[in-house]
């Protein structure tokens, strides 16, 4: 399996080549409910999560809601 390196929430992460955003959730075993994703500082809308394939050195942020005031 060919791996590429991306930055995920500020840390280095290796993932299989040709991984989509949806694929990233499966790879990380992460629920995609109530989640937002940024790729290289731009939001990737949910409708495009299957279409967008990650490449070497991509900067990905996965965020969610937590308790706050």
């Amino acid at each position, binding site marked *: 399996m060919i791996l590429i390196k991306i930055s*995920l*929430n*500020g*840390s280095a*992460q290796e993932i299989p080549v040709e991984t989509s955003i949806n694929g990233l959730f499966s790879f*990380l*075993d*992460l*629920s995609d*409910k*109530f*989640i*937002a*994703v*940024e790729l290289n*500082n731009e*939001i990737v*809308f*949910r409708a495009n999560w299957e279409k967008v394939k990650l490449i070497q050195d991509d900067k990905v*942020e*996965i*965020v*969610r*809601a*937590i*308790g*706050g*005031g």
Partner: protein
Amino acid sequence: MPADIFNIAGKDFSSRLLVGTGKYSDEREAILAIEASEAEIVTVAVRRVELEKNKRTQSILNYISPQKYTILPNTAGCFNAKEAIRIAYLGREILEGANLLKLEVLKDKETLLPLMDETIVAAKTLVKEGFEIMVYCTDDLNYAKELEDIGCVAIMPLAAPIGSGQGIVNPKAISSIIEKISCPVIIDAGIGTASEVAIAMEMGCDGVLLNSAIAKAKNPILMAEAMKEAARSGRKSFLAGRMKSQAKANPSSPMQGIVNS
């Protein structure tokens, strides 16, 4: 009494108490306290997902449901307009396009006071982008007016610094905002106990937003109930119109017909 409806961004609410979801000791306590408060608008923060499996927790929106509550994502932890705008978009995406947002841009980590110039810059952009923003601000009337002119849906001056529980430190400034601003004015931050909620409502605030005062009480669920009742009581008192304060005593029982020897 006719129905006393509280309208924010075109939506009617019956509760004038808005609550945060932070600082609770666990999920159960948060759920029970928020239920007891009967708040309908509930704030959340936007943060990175925990990637390490053993540190993961379920999303707060699994138990504080957007179907039950109007979720108000905040931009807490942002120190300039650019960061706040970025978080606003992420919050909207998490909530599948909901435009309501609590905008806060802070001066520094120590005081947590609003940084108004950056708040105004962010507010202008976000309103243009279709967000309905409720804005955490200082108690300075000039900024409040500017935010109203920009098209914010609520002006939210602090009573006292975030998490300080000092109560309304500058009631005259808050009163002048209430008097001069026609969009909803909501006290945000600094409330410590129920009587302070009642005072804010009696002054004519449209609502009160608080978090620590419930979450950090010895019994958060009981305090949530107290806050709910204080908001209602203060609002009724405001609508009823208080009697004039007088220098002299004035007997409540007639002075005629007193039985004396």
